[in-house]
Structures are given as structure tokens and as C-alpha cells.
């Protein structure tokens, strides 16, 4: 049943399936229509569904995201594409002050079946204004739920689930993942949208990661296996809520925690993960949790500097070795 799809294609299939099944689903954003989407995610949908359901917008992020909020309030299911995460800074009023708060401030009267998709992360020499990660900001907003698919299968499942949800879901997609291919089973039952998954089982340490870093963590685990270090890799798949139970179960087995994130380490997602898992698992931890994250720099344009500003496979391998050598690490 499964077929090999690129991440962008999986998202495209998910949109197509939801739009075909429900007239209230519509897509809007810059160049999503005639052009087909900056990363091809909406390719072919304009011809199939017409301009009212695949709407090319002016460059007005706050208002077209807010348009999605208003439409969601009367029961439509808008999927807003913000061309890159960086531009979402212009739409944070719509996302944080409106989408996240209207259901609550109205005493639960209004749903917010709105999906906001945004490509982000460090890609290839796009410089500081086009290489940001904003999950730290969004995670701190009650009322938002955040999915971070790392594979084509999860991209397909989680976008479909996000559209079906009556809450506002932010889908953080990674720009370097769009071209990555993987098996996608279009018929298989999906796990809950926010459930984490163990990508690789192991007994010596737990690596918790998400989005592109989950894939890098798996590569690192393969290298570590050659050295006799058996790493368990958890792909969180979601940053709000976080599947703490799965992480705790793993930590109670491995007693060592390595967190890998692409976002700046300071006050990033990893800080929350380290703090909560330390609270939950302090009694069994054999070493202090170790966080590997981006440097506290605006992303440099120079490709070599850009590469050292975020974790690479070698860095994850080295951090795992270091964690296993820690004084209490037996």
C-alpha cells in the first residue's frame, strides 16, 4: 500500500484529500495558487479547486492569517501558508492574540479550526532573516498546538489531523525536509497527532529530538552503535503538547538524556524538555541531561559558519560519548 513520496508531496496529498472530502477546507497564502507554492506543497490544487479555495493573497501576513481566524470562527477550515516562519513574525498578532485566545476568551463558544503551516529552520545559506526557528515563542502560548513532522508519513498524517482538528494547529515544516523521500501509507491508521514515536530502540541513552534533528539523531545512533553505544531515539512529532510519558518510559530504561534541537539552545524547546524530564526522572538519572542546540547567533550566511551554528551528526555523536563518560554515568 505504501508509496515513496517526498515530504512536499505528502503534504500535497494531505491537502488534496482533505479538500476533496470537505468543501469548507480552503488554502490561502502568498503564491499558493497559480504559482503552486514556494515549496510546491499546493501544486495542482488551484486548477482543481479554483481561486476561492486556493487563494493567492497580497503580502499581508497579519491580515490574511487573521482572515483565516475569522473564517474559522464561522466553521470554515482554512489552511494558511506563511511562506516562511520568518514572515510569521508579521502575523503573530493573528496567531497569538487572536487564534490562540478567541476560543478561550469566548468561554469556549468558538472553535478555531485553523491550520497555520510554516516552513522554517536553517536551510542553505539563506542568511539570518530566512533561517529562524520560532518554536520557543509558539510553545509558550496556551491555546496553540504545534506539530513538527520529520518524515513524509508524519507530514501526511499530521496535516490531515490538523485540518480535522477544531483547535488552531501550527505545523512547523523544515525547509530541508521538503525534498526528502520516504514511504507513505495513505491508508494506514494514524497515531494521535501529538504522540511521540521511538525511531530506534536502545538501552544506553535516550536522544530526544524533533523535526530534521530527529533524522540526524538516527544517523548519529547508527554511528554510535558501531562504537558499542546503544542509543534510543525519540522523535517528539509535537512540541505542544509533548508526549512526556513516552520520554519518561525511555529514560527510566536508559538513565541518560541527550536533547537535540536546531533552535538556539538558550531558552529553547530543549530547556523545557530538560526541565520537565528532570523533574519527572531525577531519581533515575545517572547524569545531568545534556542539551545540544543552535548557537546564540543570528544564522551566518557563509555556508561553513552556518553549518557550525547548528548541531550536525558528528556533534550528536560526540555529545552522546560525553554523556556516557560522565562521572555518574554507570
Amino acid at each position: 500500500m505504501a508509496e515513496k513520496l517526498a515530504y512536499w508531496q505528502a503534504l500535497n496529498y494531505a491537502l488534496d484529500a482533505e479538500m476533496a472530502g470537505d468543501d469548507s477546507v480552503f488554502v490561502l497564502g502568498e503564491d499558493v495558487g497559480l504559482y503552486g507554492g514556494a515549496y510546491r506543497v499546493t501544486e495542482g490544487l488551484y486548477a482543481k479547486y479554483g481561486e476561492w479555495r486556493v487563494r493567492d493573497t497580497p503580502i499581508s501576513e497579519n491580515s490574511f492569517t487573521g482572515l483565516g481566524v475569522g473564517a474559522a470562527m464561522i466553521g470554515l477550515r482554512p489552511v494558511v501558508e506563511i511562506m516562511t516562519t520568518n514572515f510569521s513574525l508579521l502575523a503573530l498578532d493573528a496567531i497569538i492574540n487572536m487564534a490562540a485566545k478567541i476560543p478561550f476568551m469566548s468561554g469556549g463558544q468558538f472553535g478555531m479550526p485553523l491550520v497555520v503551516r510554516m516552513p522554517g529552520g536553517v536551510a542553505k545559506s539563506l542568511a539570518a532573516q530566512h533561517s529562524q526557528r520560532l518554536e520557543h515563542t509558539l510553545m509558550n502560548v496556551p491555546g496553540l498546538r504545534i506539530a513538527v513532522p520529520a518524515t513524509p508519513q508524519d507530514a501526511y498524517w499530521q496535516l490531515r489531523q490538523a485540518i480535522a482538528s477544531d483547535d488552531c494547529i501550527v505545523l512547523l515544516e523544515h525547509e530541508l525536509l521538503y525534498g526528502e523521500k520516504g514511504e507513505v501509507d495513505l491508508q494506514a491508521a494514524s497515531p494521535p497527532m501529538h504522540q511521540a514515536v521511538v525511531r530506534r530502540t536502545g538501552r544506553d541513552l535516550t536522544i530526544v529530538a524533533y523535526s530534521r534533528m530527529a533524522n540526524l539523531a538516527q544517523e548519529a545512533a547508527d554511528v554510535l552503535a558501531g562504537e558499542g553505544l546503544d542509543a534510543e531515539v525519540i522523535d517528539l512529532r509535537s512540541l505542544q503538547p509533548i508526549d512526556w510519558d513516552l520520554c519518561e518510559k525511555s529514560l527510566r530504561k536508559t538513565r541518560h538524556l541527550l536533547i537535540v534541537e536546531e533552535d538556539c539552545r538558550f531558552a529553547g524547546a530543549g530547556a523545557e524538555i530538560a526541565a520537565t524530564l528532570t523533574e519527572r526522572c531525577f531519581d533515575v538519572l545517572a547524569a545531568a541531561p545534556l542539551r545540544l542546540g543552535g548557537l546564540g547567533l543570528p544564522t551566518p550566511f557563509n555556508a561553513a559558519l552556518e553549518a557550525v551554528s547548528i548541531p550536525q551528526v558528528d556533534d550528536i555523536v560526540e555529545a552522546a560519548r560525553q554523556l556516557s563518560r560522565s562521572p555518574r554515568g554507570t
Partner: protein
Amino acid sequence: MERDQLRGMVRDLLLARRFEERAGQAYSEGEFGGFLHLYPGEEAVAVGVLHAAEPSDYVVSTYREHVHALVKGVPPGRVMAELYGRRDGCSGGMGGSMHLFDRERRFMGGYAIVGETFPVAIGIAYGIVMRKLSEAVICFFGEGAANQGTFHESLNMAALWRLPVLFVCENNRYQIGTEVHRQSALPEIHKRACAYGMPGENADGMDVLAVHEVAQRMLRGIRAGQGPQLLELNTYRFRGHSMADAGAYRSRAEVESYKRTGPLQRVEQDLVAPVDRLTGSSIALDQTTMQQLRDEVEQIVEAAVAFAEASPAPALSDAWDALDANRRHETLVRPEPRHG
């Protein structure tokens, strides 16, 4: 204009004034806290526009929205209970004075970040067009909001896609303490409509009949698919921006001069001179009728206060329920401990 229609509008003018004065009194007595932005002086705007609306029309409003909610039909007790932060408030005590919502009556919220009403309104209107309905959205905003980016962004999209929105500018001349000539290069807000190829008009926002007439005409065109329009209504607020405003930025003489020709004064002094549409004869309300209406709204407002005072405070579990109201059918993770 028929006599019953006029009577309804005058009743709502009186209700609006009395409700706000009573709310201000309760606030001063410490019954509730927070920000409280009152409407006296501007009543003819909400009453004139919303008496021209259909029940199927949607209203999006600002943080000075109690009267818009009342005239749209939200029960006064539910509005007052929301000001008190009580469980029976129209937002369950989660929103307060600035965030009144009533889904059933299509009152789509009070928004407290200036300029947010524009995108919400065009989103609702976009849905109306997708569903091929002949409904309209009424979007209230102050003249200060016309300098936010969302004003330009949203009016552009509304005109581009011919969305059924009546943008209503309540120009009370002051964005808190900054007078319109000190904040706007073009203080006549309706003239900005031409930048989007949109019809724009202004009218005397102190004259409830003039407001009603122009709003009715514009809404008729909007519902007929002619696209959005911008209506600027020149008005004035008699009280401070909020209860915390001492009002040092304008003279007492200026405030008093506006008060002498306020929306209620005009009705009481027959300055609006309503005439019967068929016969052309005056249908101004006599003093007996005016007194009856005053007594009626006094009772309504006191009943609203009693309702609010009797309503219990919401529990913390009500807050979690409000947050979770729309996710009951979903499994988020595995059966999860609540909000870790």
C-alpha cells in the same frame, strides 16, 4: 421611518446610556476591576447602524463594545455579568469587558488590540461568499485604528475580492489622548476608501436617524454583492478613554459643547425631526413616551445588575473547560495527565 422603529432606537439609546453609567458606578464601587471603556456620547453610532442590520449579519467590534453587543441582542444581564467576571457572563467570565462574545447572536467579539477587527471581519465575509449567502459583516473600529497596517491590508483584500463588509469608523477624535490631527495625515478617514477603489462616506454620528439612513443604504448595496464600503461617523466620547483617564488633554468647554448636542439631547429636543415615511408628519416621541422608555431601561439595567451579582464566579475547572471546549473528540497524546 415608522414610529415603532423610532421608539426602538430611542429605547436603545437610553438603554445604552443607562447601562454604561450603571456599569461605571459598579466599577467605581469596586464590584469588578480591569479596563472599562464606556460609550456615552457615541450611542447613535451603534444604535443607528445596528438597527439597519439583519439578525443574520455578523458584528465585529472593539474593546468599547458593550453597546454594540446590547443592540445586537445580547441580553443585558449576560453583558453585565461578563463585566463582573461571572460564570453567566456572555463569555463565561473568561473575557470581561473588552471580550464580549455571543456566537448565537453573531456577535463575533470585542477585540482589545487596535486593528484586529479588520482581518476577523474579512475572514467571516470570505466565508459568506464561499457559501454564497447574502449576509453582511459590520466591522466597527475607531479612527485610531485606521493607522494600523491591518486597516490597509484588510481593506485591500476586501475590495479585491468584493467581500460583504461595512467598515464603520467611530471617529470620536481621540486615540486615548491624541487628537486626530496629531495622529493622522488625512483625518477624514472615509477619504481613505478611494485608495482601495471602495465607496466611502461620512455622516453625523450624533444623529441616530442620519446614521440609520446611510447604514441601511450601504448595507443594502453590500448584501446585493456590490462589495465593501466604508462609513465614517463623526462622534465624541463624553467620558475618558477608560475609567483611568483623567482627561487632561481636552478642555472642559469642548466636552460640554459636544454634550449639548449629544445623541440623546437631539432626540429629546426634537432636533432629529423624525417624520413618518408615508404621511410626512412628525413622529417625534412625546414626553410621556420618553418617560416610559426611561423607566423601562432603568428596570432592565437594574435587573441586569441583579443578575450579575447573583451569578457565581467561574471555577478554575471552567477555565480549563473553555480552553479544551473544542478538543473533546480528540486524543491528544495518550490519555494524558491534565496540562503538564
